[in-house]
Protein backbone atom coordinates (compact mmCIF):
# COMPACT_ATOMS: atom_id res chain seq x y z
CA UNK A 1 0.00 0.00 0.00
CA UNK A 2 1.68 3.15 -1.17
CA UNK A 3 1.15 6.60 0.22
CA UNK A 4 2.11 9.41 -2.12
CA UNK A 5 3.69 12.60 -0.91
CA UNK A 6 5.49 15.58 -2.27
CA UNK A 7 9.06 16.05 -1.16
CA UNK A 8 10.81 19.35 -1.80
CA UNK A 9 14.54 19.62 -2.39
CA UNK A 10 14.96 21.15 1.04
CA UNK A 11 13.06 18.26 2.55
CA UNK A 12 15.29 15.81 0.73
CA UNK A 13 18.26 17.60 2.29
CA UNK A 14 16.68 17.16 5.69
CA UNK A 15 15.97 13.50 4.99
CA UNK A 16 19.62 12.88 4.06
CA UNK A 17 20.73 14.52 7.28
CA UNK A 18 18.26 12.50 9.31
CA UNK A 19 19.28 9.24 7.66
CA UNK A 20 22.91 9.82 8.51
CA UNK A 21 21.94 10.90 11.98
CA UNK A 22 20.30 7.50 12.29
CA UNK A 23 23.72 5.93 11.74
CA UNK A 24 23.29 4.92 8.12
CA UNK A 25 25.51 5.65 5.17
CA UNK A 26 24.01 6.83 1.88
CA UNK A 27 25.27 5.49 -1.44
CA UNK A 28 24.27 7.50 -4.49
CA UNK A 29 25.43 8.08 -8.07
CA UNK A 30 28.21 10.66 -8.21
CA UNK A 31 30.16 12.05 -11.14
CA UNK A 32 33.88 11.56 -10.87
CA UNK A 33 36.45 11.68 -13.69
CA UNK A 34 33.71 11.48 -16.29
CA UNK A 35 32.09 8.39 -14.79
CA UNK A 36 28.93 7.99 -12.76
CA UNK A 37 29.16 5.38 -10.00
CA UNK A 38 27.63 4.69 -6.59
CA UNK A 39 29.67 6.36 -3.85
CA UNK A 40 29.04 7.46 -0.26
CA UNK A 41 27.48 10.94 -0.17
CA UNK A 42 26.56 13.34 2.61
CA UNK A 43 23.97 15.56 0.91
CA UNK A 44 21.81 15.59 -2.22
CA UNK A 45 24.06 18.23 -3.74
CA UNK A 46 26.74 15.60 -4.30
CA UNK A 47 24.40 13.37 -6.27
CA UNK A 48 24.96 13.32 -10.03
CA UNK A 49 22.37 15.24 -12.00
CA UNK A 50 22.20 14.03 -15.51
CA UNK A 51 22.74 10.28 -15.52
CA UNK A 52 20.87 7.42 -17.09
CA UNK A 53 22.56 4.69 -15.03
CA UNK A 54 25.68 4.02 -13.05
CA UNK A 55 28.08 1.58 -14.70
CA UNK A 56 28.36 -0.84 -11.79
CA UNK A 57 25.18 -1.91 -10.02
CA UNK A 58 23.96 -1.62 -6.45
CA UNK A 59 24.20 -5.38 -5.94
CA UNK A 60 27.60 -4.77 -4.34
CA UNK A 61 25.71 -3.44 -1.32
CA UNK A 62 24.30 -6.91 -0.62
CA UNK A 63 26.68 -9.11 -2.61
CA UNK A 64 30.16 -7.56 -2.49
CA UNK A 65 32.80 -8.50 -5.06
CA UNK A 66 34.80 -10.28 -2.34
CA UNK A 67 33.38 -11.73 0.88
CA UNK A 68 35.00 -13.89 3.54
CA UNK A 69 32.88 -16.94 4.37
CA UNK A 70 35.11 -18.58 6.97
CA UNK A 71 38.68 -18.73 8.20
CA UNK A 72 40.81 -21.25 10.10
CA UNK A 73 44.09 -21.90 11.84
CA UNK A 74 45.96 -25.13 11.26
CA UNK A 75 48.18 -27.40 13.34
CA UNK A 76 49.09 -31.06 12.95
CA UNK A 77 45.92 -33.06 13.48
CA UNK A 78 43.94 -29.94 14.31
CA UNK A 79 41.85 -27.33 12.54
CA UNK A 80 40.15 -24.42 14.29
CA UNK A 81 37.35 -22.94 12.22
CA UNK A 82 36.12 -19.41 12.61
CA UNK A 83 32.56 -18.68 11.51
CA UNK A 84 32.47 -14.92 10.84
CA UNK A 85 29.64 -12.63 11.80
CA UNK A 86 28.74 -10.65 8.68
CA UNK A 87 29.50 -6.97 9.20
CA UNK A 88 26.65 -5.19 7.48
CA UNK A 89 26.78 -1.40 7.40
CA UNK A 90 23.28 0.14 7.61
CA UNK A 91 22.90 1.61 4.15
CA UNK A 92 20.45 3.58 2.07
CA UNK A 93 20.97 3.33 -1.68
CA UNK A 94 19.64 6.50 -3.24
CA UNK A 95 19.13 7.42 -6.87
CA UNK A 96 19.29 4.05 -8.57
CA UNK A 97 16.69 3.53 -11.25
CA UNK A 98 13.53 1.43 -10.86
CA UNK A 99 14.97 -1.28 -13.11
CA UNK A 100 17.91 -1.81 -10.81
CA UNK A 101 15.75 -1.69 -7.68
CA UNK A 102 13.79 -4.54 -9.21
CA UNK A 103 16.98 -6.61 -9.44
CA UNK A 104 17.26 -7.35 -5.72
CA UNK A 105 14.40 -9.84 -5.96
CA UNK A 106 16.39 -11.95 -8.40
CA UNK A 107 19.36 -12.02 -6.02
CA UNK A 108 17.09 -12.87 -3.11
CA UNK A 109 15.59 -15.75 -5.07
CA UNK A 110 18.96 -17.46 -5.38
CA UNK A 111 20.43 -16.66 -2.00
CA UNK A 112 17.37 -17.71 -0.08
CA UNK A 113 15.76 -20.57 -1.92
CA UNK A 114 16.11 -23.90 -0.09
CA UNK A 115 18.84 -22.70 2.30
CA UNK A 116 19.48 -19.17 3.47
CA UNK A 117 22.72 -17.29 2.90
CA UNK A 118 23.45 -15.38 6.06
CA UNK A 119 25.96 -13.04 4.47
CA UNK A 120 23.50 -11.81 1.86
CA UNK A 121 20.68 -11.59 4.40
CA UNK A 122 22.68 -9.62 6.92
CA UNK A 123 23.33 -6.97 4.29
CA UNK A 124 19.86 -7.02 2.75
CA UNK A 125 18.39 -6.57 6.20
CA UNK A 126 20.35 -3.36 6.67
CA UNK A 127 19.59 -1.98 3.21
CA UNK A 128 16.87 0.45 2.19
CA UNK A 129 16.31 1.59 -1.39
CA UNK A 130 15.20 5.05 -2.52
CA UNK A 131 14.99 4.79 -6.29
CA UNK A 132 14.41 7.72 -8.63
CA UNK A 133 12.21 7.28 -11.71
CA UNK A 134 13.46 7.98 -15.20
CA UNK A 135 12.91 11.11 -17.24
CA UNK A 136 15.44 9.96 -19.84
CA UNK A 137 16.40 6.69 -21.46
CA UNK A 138 18.97 5.53 -23.97
CA UNK A 139 19.11 2.84 -26.64
CA UNK A 140 20.27 0.20 -24.21
CA UNK A 141 17.23 0.44 -21.90
CA UNK A 142 14.40 -2.08 -22.26
CA UNK A 143 12.75 -2.21 -18.84
CA UNK A 144 9.20 -2.27 -20.20
CA UNK A 145 9.92 -5.40 -22.22
CA UNK A 146 10.71 -7.36 -19.04
CA UNK A 147 7.93 -6.32 -16.71
CA UNK A 148 9.49 -3.11 -15.44
CA UNK A 149 9.14 0.53 -16.30
CA UNK A 150 10.52 4.02 -15.68
CA UNK A 151 8.14 4.37 -12.72
CA UNK A 152 8.04 0.78 -11.50
CA UNK A 153 7.82 0.40 -7.72
CA UNK A 154 9.27 -3.12 -7.60
CA UNK A 155 12.12 -3.38 -5.12
CA UNK A 156 11.95 0.20 -3.86
CA UNK A 157 11.21 1.19 -0.30
CA UNK A 158 10.56 4.75 -1.45
CA UNK A 159 10.20 5.68 -5.13
CA UNK A 160 10.82 9.29 -6.08
CA UNK A 161 9.59 10.84 -9.31
CA UNK A 162 11.07 14.20 -10.33
CA UNK A 163 8.21 16.71 -10.11
CA UNK A 164 7.92 20.44 -9.90
CA UNK A 165 10.90 21.62 -7.85
CA UNK A 166 11.21 18.41 -5.94
CA UNK A 167 9.78 14.93 -6.13
CA UNK A 168 6.68 12.84 -5.83
CA UNK A 169 7.48 10.30 -3.14
CA UNK A 170 5.74 6.95 -2.95
CA UNK A 171 6.40 5.32 0.41
CA UNK A 172 5.99 1.64 -0.31
CA UNK A 173 7.22 -0.62 2.49
CA UNK A 174 7.85 -0.79 6.21
CA UNK A 175 11.47 0.14 5.56
CA UNK A 176 10.23 3.11 3.54
CA UNK A 177 7.93 4.18 6.35
CA UNK A 178 10.79 3.91 8.80
CA UNK A 179 12.82 6.28 6.62
CA UNK A 180 9.89 8.65 6.35
CA UNK A 181 9.58 8.67 10.12
CA UNK A 182 13.12 10.04 10.38
CA UNK A 183 12.04 13.33 8.73
CA UNK A 184 8.25 13.19 8.57
CA UNK A 185 7.60 16.91 8.18
CA UNK A 186 9.08 16.86 4.67
CA UNK A 187 6.51 14.37 3.39
CA UNK A 188 3.44 16.46 2.46
CA UNK A 189 0.39 14.68 1.07
CA UNK A 190 0.44 15.12 -2.68
CA UNK A 191 -2.39 16.12 -4.96
CA UNK A 192 -3.37 13.65 -7.65
CA UNK A 193 -0.63 13.68 -10.28
CA UNK A 194 -0.32 11.68 -13.48
CA UNK A 195 2.99 10.03 -12.67
CA UNK A 196 3.39 8.49 -16.11
CA UNK A 197 3.28 11.94 -17.70
CA UNK A 198 6.34 12.92 -15.66
CA UNK A 199 8.40 10.00 -16.87
CA UNK A 200 10.03 9.11 -20.15
CA UNK A 201 8.09 6.84 -22.47
CA UNK A 202 9.71 3.43 -23.04
CA UNK A 203 7.68 1.41 -25.54
CA UNK A 204 8.11 -2.34 -25.15
CA UNK A 205 10.61 -3.66 -27.68
CA UNK A 206 9.63 -7.32 -27.77
CA UNK A 207 7.12 -9.84 -26.44
CA UNK A 208 9.10 -11.47 -23.67
CA UNK A 209 6.65 -14.27 -22.77
CA UNK A 210 6.62 -15.30 -26.41
CA UNK A 211 10.41 -15.32 -26.50
CA UNK A 212 10.66 -17.32 -23.29
CA UNK A 213 8.24 -19.86 -24.72
CA UNK A 214 10.29 -20.06 -27.91
CA UNK A 215 13.71 -20.53 -26.35
CA UNK A 216 13.63 -24.30 -25.70
CA UNK A 217 13.15 -24.91 -29.43
CA UNK A 218 16.05 -22.56 -30.27
CA UNK A 219 18.63 -24.33 -28.13
CA UNK A 220 20.56 -25.85 -31.03
CA UNK A 221 20.20 -22.88 -33.37
CA UNK A 222 23.31 -21.50 -35.09
CA UNK A 223 22.10 -18.10 -33.97
CA UNK A 224 23.94 -18.21 -30.64
CA UNK A 225 27.33 -19.01 -32.15
CA UNK A 226 26.87 -16.26 -34.72
CA UNK A 227 25.90 -13.68 -32.10
CA UNK A 228 28.84 -14.72 -29.93
CA UNK A 229 31.42 -14.42 -32.69
CA UNK A 230 32.44 -10.97 -31.48
CA UNK A 231 32.08 -11.78 -27.76
CA UNK A 232 35.52 -11.76 -26.14
CA UNK A 233 34.50 -13.88 -23.16
CA UNK A 234 35.21 -11.42 -20.36
CA UNK A 235 33.00 -10.98 -17.30
CA UNK A 236 32.02 -7.36 -17.74
CA UNK A 237 28.35 -8.10 -18.50
CA UNK A 238 27.94 -10.41 -15.52
CA UNK A 239 29.73 -8.11 -13.12
CA UNK A 240 27.80 -4.92 -13.93
CA UNK A 241 24.48 -6.78 -13.97
CA UNK A 242 22.15 -6.16 -11.00
CA UNK A 243 20.79 -9.72 -11.14
CA UNK A 244 23.84 -11.82 -12.00
CA UNK A 245 24.78 -13.79 -8.92
CA UNK A 246 27.15 -16.59 -9.96
CA UNK A 247 30.16 -16.76 -7.68
CA UNK A 248 33.47 -18.53 -7.17
CA UNK A 249 34.84 -19.97 -3.94
CA UNK A 250 38.56 -19.53 -3.42
CA UNK A 251 40.89 -20.72 -0.72
CA UNK A 252 43.79 -18.56 0.46
CA UNK A 253 46.17 -20.05 3.01
CA UNK A 254 49.77 -19.97 4.09
CA UNK A 255 50.24 -23.26 5.92
CA UNK A 256 49.27 -21.99 9.37
CA UNK A 257 46.04 -20.23 8.60
CA UNK A 258 43.67 -19.63 5.78
CA UNK A 259 40.35 -18.31 4.66
CA UNK A 260 37.65 -19.13 2.18
CA UNK A 261 36.43 -16.26 0.02
CA UNK A 262 33.51 -15.81 -2.29
CA UNK A 263 34.01 -13.61 -5.37
CA UNK A 264 32.01 -12.68 -8.45
CA UNK A 265 32.21 -15.09 -11.36
CA UNK A 266 30.78 -15.22 -14.87
CA UNK A 267 29.34 -18.02 -16.97
CA UNK A 268 30.98 -16.23 -19.88
CA UNK A 269 34.42 -17.24 -18.65
CA UNK A 270 35.69 -20.36 -20.40
CA UNK A 271 36.77 -22.04 -17.17
CA UNK A 272 33.40 -21.70 -15.51
CA UNK A 273 32.22 -25.22 -16.32
CA UNK A 274 35.59 -26.93 -16.87
CA UNK A 275 35.80 -30.38 -15.21
CA UNK A 276 38.97 -31.68 -13.56
CA UNK A 277 39.06 -34.31 -16.30
CA UNK A 278 39.50 -31.56 -18.89
CA UNK A 279 35.98 -31.97 -20.26
CA UNK A 280 34.11 -28.69 -20.70
CA UNK A 281 30.32 -28.95 -21.22
CA UNK A 282 30.25 -25.39 -22.58
CA UNK A 283 33.38 -25.48 -24.66
CA UNK A 284 32.78 -22.54 -27.00
CA UNK A 285 31.67 -18.94 -26.57
CA UNK A 286 28.41 -19.60 -28.43
CA UNK A 287 27.37 -22.11 -25.78
CA UNK A 288 28.38 -19.72 -23.01
CA UNK A 289 26.53 -16.79 -24.58
CA UNK A 290 23.49 -19.00 -24.97
CA UNK A 291 23.72 -19.89 -21.27
CA UNK A 292 23.58 -16.20 -20.34
CA UNK A 293 20.44 -15.65 -22.37
CA UNK A 294 18.75 -18.87 -21.32
CA UNK A 295 19.59 -18.54 -17.67
CA UNK A 296 17.94 -15.12 -17.57
CA UNK A 297 15.02 -15.72 -19.89
CA UNK A 298 14.25 -19.45 -19.66
CA UNK A 299 15.73 -21.16 -16.58
CA UNK A 300 15.00 -18.38 -14.11
CA UNK A 301 11.29 -18.20 -15.03
CA UNK A 302 11.09 -22.01 -14.86
CA UNK A 303 12.71 -22.19 -11.50
CA UNK A 304 11.93 -18.95 -9.66
CA UNK A 305 8.87 -17.65 -11.50
CA UNK A 306 10.65 -14.43 -12.46
CA UNK A 307 13.07 -13.22 -15.09
CA UNK A 308 16.78 -12.93 -14.42
CA UNK A 309 16.91 -9.60 -16.28
CA UNK A 310 15.52 -6.15 -15.49
CA UNK A 311 16.25 -4.48 -18.82
CA UNK A 312 18.62 -1.90 -17.36
CA UNK A 313 21.04 -2.14 -20.26
CA UNK A 314 24.17 -2.01 -18.10
CA UNK A 315 25.60 -5.08 -19.82
CA UNK A 316 25.18 -3.48 -23.22
CA UNK A 317 26.88 -0.26 -22.16
CA UNK A 318 29.76 -1.99 -20.37
CA UNK A 319 30.47 -4.56 -23.07
CA UNK A 320 33.74 -3.79 -24.87
CA UNK A 321 32.25 -5.13 -28.12
CA UNK A 322 28.65 -3.95 -27.74
CA UNK A 323 26.85 -7.24 -27.21
CA UNK A 324 23.54 -5.39 -27.15
CA UNK A 325 21.26 -7.75 -25.23
CA UNK A 326 18.01 -6.22 -26.45
CA UNK A 327 19.18 -6.49 -30.05
CA UNK A 328 20.22 -10.12 -29.65
CA UNK A 329 16.91 -10.97 -27.98
CA UNK A 330 14.99 -9.29 -30.79
CA UNK A 331 16.94 -11.34 -33.32
CA UNK A 332 16.12 -14.53 -31.43
CA UNK A 333 12.46 -13.53 -31.17
CA UNK A 334 12.31 -12.98 -34.92
CA UNK A 335 14.21 -16.10 -35.94
Amino acid at each position, binding site marked *: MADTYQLSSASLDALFTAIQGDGRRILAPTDRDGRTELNPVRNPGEVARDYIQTTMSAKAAVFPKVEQL*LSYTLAKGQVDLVDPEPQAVPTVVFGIRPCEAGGFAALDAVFNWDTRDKFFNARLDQLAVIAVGCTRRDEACFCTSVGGGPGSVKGSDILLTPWSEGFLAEVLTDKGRALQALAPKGFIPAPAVDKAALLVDVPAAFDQPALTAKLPALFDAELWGNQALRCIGCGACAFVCPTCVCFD*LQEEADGQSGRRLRSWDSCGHSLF*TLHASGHNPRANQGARWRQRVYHKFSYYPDRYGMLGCVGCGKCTRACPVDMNLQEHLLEAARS
Partner: protein
Amino acid sequence: MSEANIYLPHLMRIAAITEEAPGVRTFRLEFVDAAAAEAFAFRTGQFGLYSAFGDGESTFCIASSPTRKGYIECTFREVGRVTAGLADKEVGDIVGFRGPYGNVFPIDQWQGKNLLFITGGIALPPLRSVIWNCLDLRDQFKDITIVYGARSVNDLVYKAELKEWEQRPDVNLVCTVDPGGETPEWTGKVGFVPLIVEQLAPSPDNTIALVCGPPILIKLTMPLLRKLGFGAESIFTTLENRMKCGVGKCGRCNTGKSYVCKDGPVYTLEQLGQLPAEY
Protein backbone atom coordinates in the same frame (compact mmCIF):
# COMPACT_ATOMS: atom_id res chain seq x y z
CA MET B 1 23.02 -13.55 16.13
CA SER B 2 22.58 -14.37 12.48
CA GLU B 3 21.56 -17.54 10.72
CA ALA B 4 23.72 -20.62 10.24
CA ASN B 5 26.66 -20.42 7.86
CA ILE B 6 25.78 -22.81 5.07
CA TYR B 7 29.38 -22.79 3.82
CA LEU B 8 30.91 -23.95 7.09
CA PRO B 9 32.17 -27.54 6.91
CA HIS B 10 32.16 -30.25 9.59
CA LEU B 11 35.59 -31.27 10.80
CA MET B 12 36.37 -34.91 10.05
CA ARG B 13 39.26 -37.03 11.26
CA ILE B 14 40.74 -39.49 8.78
CA ALA B 15 40.26 -42.87 10.46
CA ALA B 16 41.62 -45.05 7.65
CA ILE B 17 43.16 -44.72 4.19
CA THR B 18 43.00 -47.43 1.54
CA GLU B 19 45.04 -47.29 -1.64
CA GLU B 20 42.56 -48.58 -4.19
CA ALA B 21 44.47 -48.18 -7.43
CA PRO B 22 47.27 -45.98 -8.79
CA GLY B 23 46.35 -42.44 -7.76
CA VAL B 24 43.04 -43.53 -6.19
CA ARG B 25 42.42 -43.53 -2.45
CA THR B 26 39.54 -44.13 -0.08
CA PHE B 27 39.25 -42.14 3.13
CA ARG B 28 37.19 -43.36 6.06
CA LEU B 29 36.14 -40.23 7.93
CA GLU B 30 34.72 -39.75 11.43
CA PHE B 31 33.12 -36.57 12.77
CA VAL B 32 35.34 -34.74 15.23
CA ASP B 33 32.26 -33.40 16.98
CA ALA B 34 30.28 -36.16 18.68
CA ALA B 35 27.02 -34.25 18.46
CA ALA B 36 27.47 -33.79 14.70
CA ALA B 37 28.19 -37.52 14.36
CA GLU B 38 25.01 -38.33 16.28
CA ALA B 39 22.86 -35.96 14.22
CA PHE B 40 24.26 -36.98 10.85
CA ALA B 41 22.25 -39.08 8.43
CA PHE B 42 22.24 -39.40 4.68
CA ARG B 43 20.70 -41.47 1.91
CA THR B 44 22.43 -43.29 -0.86
CA GLY B 45 23.17 -41.12 -3.89
CA GLN B 46 24.09 -38.04 -1.91
CA PHE B 47 27.45 -36.32 -2.09
CA GLY B 48 29.52 -33.87 -0.14
CA LEU B 49 32.16 -31.19 -0.55
CA TYR B 50 35.38 -32.29 1.07
CA SER B 51 37.93 -29.68 2.19
CA ALA B 52 41.66 -29.99 2.10
CA PHE B 53 42.19 -26.97 4.33
CA GLY B 54 44.66 -24.74 2.55
CA ASP B 55 43.76 -25.95 -0.93
CA GLY B 56 40.00 -25.83 -1.22
CA GLU B 57 37.05 -28.12 -1.66
CA SER B 58 36.28 -30.96 -4.01
CA THR B 59 33.06 -32.81 -4.75
CA PHE B 60 32.80 -36.56 -4.22
CA CYS B 61 29.89 -38.87 -3.58
CA ILE B 62 29.51 -40.44 -0.17
CA ALA B 63 30.82 -43.85 -1.13
CA SER B 64 29.81 -45.69 2.01
CA SER B 65 26.32 -46.98 2.79
CA PRO B 66 23.92 -45.10 5.09
CA THR B 67 23.39 -48.41 6.87
CA ARG B 68 26.94 -48.27 8.23
CA LYS B 69 26.95 -45.82 11.12
CA GLY B 70 29.74 -43.87 12.72
CA TYR B 71 31.70 -42.99 9.59
CA ILE B 72 31.45 -41.96 5.95
CA GLU B 73 33.79 -42.85 3.13
CA CYS B 74 34.88 -41.08 -0.01
CA THR B 75 37.01 -42.35 -2.86
CA PHE B 76 38.92 -39.99 -5.09
CA ARG B 77 41.60 -39.82 -7.74
CA GLU B 78 44.40 -37.32 -7.49
CA VAL B 79 43.83 -35.03 -10.49
CA GLY B 80 44.21 -31.46 -9.31
CA ARG B 81 45.12 -29.13 -6.52
CA VAL B 82 42.54 -30.14 -3.93
CA THR B 83 42.82 -33.87 -4.52
CA ALA B 84 46.61 -33.53 -4.38
CA GLY B 85 46.20 -31.79 -1.03
CA LEU B 86 43.93 -34.58 0.19
CA ALA B 87 46.28 -37.25 -1.11
CA ASP B 88 49.00 -35.77 1.11
CA LYS B 89 46.98 -36.39 4.26
CA GLU B 90 47.62 -39.14 6.78
CA VAL B 91 45.47 -41.06 9.22
CA GLY B 92 44.64 -38.71 12.08
CA ASP B 93 44.65 -35.56 9.92
CA ILE B 94 41.60 -33.33 9.72
CA VAL B 95 39.64 -32.60 6.56
CA GLY B 96 36.34 -30.82 6.07
CA PHE B 97 33.00 -32.15 4.92
CA ARG B 98 29.85 -30.30 3.85
CA GLY B 99 26.79 -32.35 3.17
CA PRO B 100 24.89 -34.46 2.59
CA TYR B 101 23.90 -32.70 -0.59
CA GLY B 102 21.83 -33.62 -3.59
CA ASN B 103 19.00 -36.00 -4.24
CA VAL B 104 18.87 -39.75 -3.69
CA PHE B 105 18.50 -43.09 -5.43
CA PRO B 106 14.92 -44.03 -4.55
CA ILE B 107 15.75 -47.53 -3.36
CA ASP B 108 12.58 -47.67 -1.28
CA GLN B 109 10.67 -47.72 -4.59
CA TRP B 110 12.68 -50.69 -5.85
CA GLN B 111 11.50 -53.32 -3.42
CA GLY B 112 10.99 -56.66 -5.12
CA LYS B 113 12.87 -55.56 -8.22
CA ASN B 114 16.05 -56.80 -9.88
CA LEU B 115 18.94 -54.38 -9.76
CA LEU B 116 21.52 -54.06 -12.53
CA PHE B 117 24.62 -51.97 -11.81
CA ILE B 118 26.81 -50.96 -14.77
CA THR B 119 29.90 -48.94 -14.07
CA GLY B 120 33.57 -48.50 -14.77
CA GLY B 121 36.78 -47.31 -13.22
CA ILE B 122 36.42 -44.64 -10.64
CA ALA B 123 32.68 -44.36 -11.29
CA LEU B 124 32.08 -47.33 -9.02
CA PRO B 125 32.22 -45.32 -5.75
CA PRO B 126 28.77 -43.68 -6.05
CA LEU B 127 27.19 -47.02 -6.95
CA ARG B 128 29.14 -48.84 -4.27
CA SER B 129 27.13 -46.87 -1.73
CA VAL B 130 23.92 -48.15 -3.30
CA ILE B 131 25.25 -51.71 -3.60
CA TRP B 132 26.12 -52.00 0.07
CA ASN B 133 22.88 -50.25 1.04
CA CYS B 134 20.94 -52.87 -0.92
CA LEU B 135 23.07 -55.78 0.24
CA ASP B 136 22.47 -54.69 3.83
CA LEU B 137 18.75 -54.89 3.03
CA ARG B 138 19.15 -57.93 0.78
CA ASP B 139 15.68 -59.39 1.30
CA GLN B 140 14.05 -56.31 -0.23
CA PHE B 141 15.45 -56.93 -3.69
CA LYS B 142 15.50 -59.80 -6.13
CA ASP B 143 18.50 -60.41 -8.40
CA ILE B 144 21.48 -58.12 -8.01
CA THR B 145 23.88 -58.00 -10.97
CA ILE B 146 27.00 -55.86 -11.10
CA VAL B 147 28.95 -55.26 -14.30
CA TYR B 148 32.16 -53.43 -13.50
CA GLY B 149 35.20 -52.80 -15.63
CA ALA B 150 38.39 -50.80 -15.63
CA ARG B 151 41.23 -50.08 -17.97
CA SER B 152 43.40 -52.72 -16.32
CA VAL B 153 43.34 -55.10 -13.37
CA ASN B 154 45.33 -52.62 -11.35
CA ASP B 155 42.78 -49.86 -11.97
CA LEU B 156 39.89 -51.78 -10.43
CA VAL B 157 38.84 -50.13 -7.17
CA TYR B 158 37.52 -51.81 -4.02
CA LYS B 159 39.45 -54.95 -4.94
CA ALA B 160 38.75 -56.66 -1.60
CA GLU B 161 35.02 -55.94 -1.87
CA LEU B 162 34.93 -57.19 -5.45
CA LYS B 163 36.23 -60.51 -4.13
CA GLU B 164 33.52 -60.47 -1.47
CA TRP B 165 30.78 -59.79 -4.00
CA GLU B 166 32.13 -62.45 -6.30
CA GLN B 167 31.91 -65.02 -3.56
CA ARG B 168 28.38 -64.12 -2.45
CA PRO B 169 25.76 -66.45 -3.96
CA ASP B 170 23.17 -63.66 -3.88
CA VAL B 171 25.20 -61.36 -6.13
CA ASN B 172 26.13 -61.86 -9.78
CA LEU B 173 29.36 -59.95 -10.32
CA VAL B 174 30.80 -59.64 -13.82
CA CYS B 175 34.21 -57.98 -13.86
CA THR B 176 36.01 -56.97 -16.99
CA VAL B 177 39.12 -55.14 -18.09
CA ASP B 178 39.83 -53.38 -21.36
CA PRO B 179 41.62 -55.45 -23.97
CA GLY B 180 45.29 -55.37 -23.04
CA GLY B 181 44.50 -54.66 -19.40
CA GLU B 182 44.39 -58.29 -18.29
CA THR B 183 47.14 -60.09 -16.40
CA PRO B 184 47.99 -63.81 -16.77
CA GLU B 185 46.11 -64.52 -13.50
CA TRP B 186 42.97 -62.65 -14.55
CA THR B 187 39.92 -64.87 -14.56
CA GLY B 188 37.34 -62.18 -15.32
CA LYS B 189 36.20 -60.99 -18.71
CA VAL B 190 38.13 -58.94 -21.23
CA GLY B 191 36.26 -56.26 -23.18
CA PHE B 192 34.77 -52.80 -22.81
CA VAL B 193 31.88 -52.57 -20.36
CA PRO B 194 29.16 -51.79 -22.93
CA LEU B 195 30.25 -54.81 -24.96
CA ILE B 196 30.09 -57.06 -21.91
CA VAL B 197 26.61 -55.75 -21.13
CA GLU B 198 25.54 -56.50 -24.67
CA GLN B 199 26.85 -60.05 -24.35
CA LEU B 200 25.09 -60.42 -21.02
CA ALA B 201 21.83 -59.23 -22.62
CA PRO B 202 20.10 -58.51 -19.31
CA SER B 203 16.31 -58.64 -19.29
CA PRO B 204 14.50 -55.38 -18.60
CA ASP B 205 11.62 -57.16 -16.84
CA ASN B 206 11.12 -55.81 -13.34
CA THR B 207 14.67 -54.43 -13.44
CA ILE B 208 16.16 -51.11 -12.45
CA ALA B 209 19.45 -50.23 -14.17
CA LEU B 210 21.99 -47.94 -12.53
CA VAL B 211 24.67 -46.66 -14.86
CA CYS B 212 27.60 -44.53 -13.84
CA GLY B 213 30.73 -43.87 -15.80
CA PRO B 214 32.71 -41.56 -18.01
CA PRO B 215 30.87 -39.94 -20.92
CA ILE B 216 31.92 -42.69 -23.34
CA LEU B 217 30.47 -45.43 -21.16
CA ILE B 218 27.20 -43.55 -20.73
CA LYS B 219 27.04 -42.74 -24.43
CA LEU B 220 27.33 -46.38 -25.45
CA THR B 221 25.42 -48.04 -22.63
CA MET B 222 22.24 -45.96 -22.59
CA PRO B 223 21.14 -46.73 -26.16
CA LEU B 224 22.06 -50.37 -25.58
CA LEU B 225 19.77 -50.60 -22.56
CA ARG B 226 16.96 -48.92 -24.47
CA LYS B 227 17.48 -51.42 -27.27
CA LEU B 228 17.23 -54.23 -24.74
CA GLY B 229 13.87 -52.85 -23.73
CA PHE B 230 14.63 -50.83 -20.60
CA GLY B 231 12.28 -47.88 -20.08
CA ALA B 232 13.85 -44.45 -19.75
CA GLU B 233 12.33 -44.12 -16.29
CA SER B 234 13.99 -47.38 -15.16
CA ILE B 235 17.52 -46.30 -16.00
CA PHE B 236 19.26 -44.22 -13.35
CA THR B 237 22.55 -42.40 -13.51
CA THR B 238 24.47 -40.03 -11.33
CA LEU B 239 25.96 -36.99 -13.02
CA GLU B 240 28.98 -34.93 -12.33
CA ASN B 241 29.37 -31.29 -13.06
CA ARG B 242 31.85 -28.69 -11.92
CA MET B 243 30.64 -27.58 -8.48
CA LYS B 244 31.65 -25.02 -5.91
CA CYS B 245 28.90 -24.26 -3.42
CA GLY B 246 26.99 -27.55 -3.60
CA VAL B 247 23.78 -25.86 -2.48
CA GLY B 248 22.34 -24.41 -5.66
CA LYS B 249 23.56 -20.85 -5.45
CA CYS B 250 26.89 -20.31 -7.20
CA GLY B 251 25.48 -21.30 -10.58
CA ARG B 252 28.40 -23.39 -11.74
CA CYS B 253 26.61 -26.73 -12.04
CA ASN B 254 23.49 -25.18 -13.53
CA THR B 255 22.32 -26.90 -16.69
CA GLY B 256 18.89 -26.06 -18.06
CA LYS B 257 16.69 -25.24 -15.12
CA SER B 258 18.47 -27.87 -13.06
CA TYR B 259 21.21 -27.53 -10.48
CA VAL B 260 23.08 -30.84 -10.56
CA CYS B 261 23.88 -30.29 -6.88
CA LYS B 262 20.21 -29.97 -5.88
CA ASP B 263 17.96 -31.58 -8.49
CA GLY B 264 20.65 -34.19 -9.09
CA PRO B 265 23.12 -35.73 -9.10
CA VAL B 266 20.77 -38.68 -9.53
CA TYR B 267 18.73 -38.49 -12.73
CA THR B 268 16.71 -41.01 -14.68
CA LEU B 269 17.40 -41.24 -18.39
CA GLU B 270 13.99 -39.65 -18.93
CA GLN B 271 14.97 -36.65 -16.79
CA LEU B 272 18.33 -36.42 -18.56
CA GLY B 273 16.48 -36.16 -21.82
CA GLN B 274 14.82 -32.97 -20.58
CA LEU B 275 18.13 -31.31 -19.82
CA PRO B 276 20.14 -29.52 -22.48
CA ALA B 277 22.80 -31.72 -24.02
CA GLU B 278 25.67 -29.93 -22.35
CA TYR B 279 27.07 -32.26 -19.70
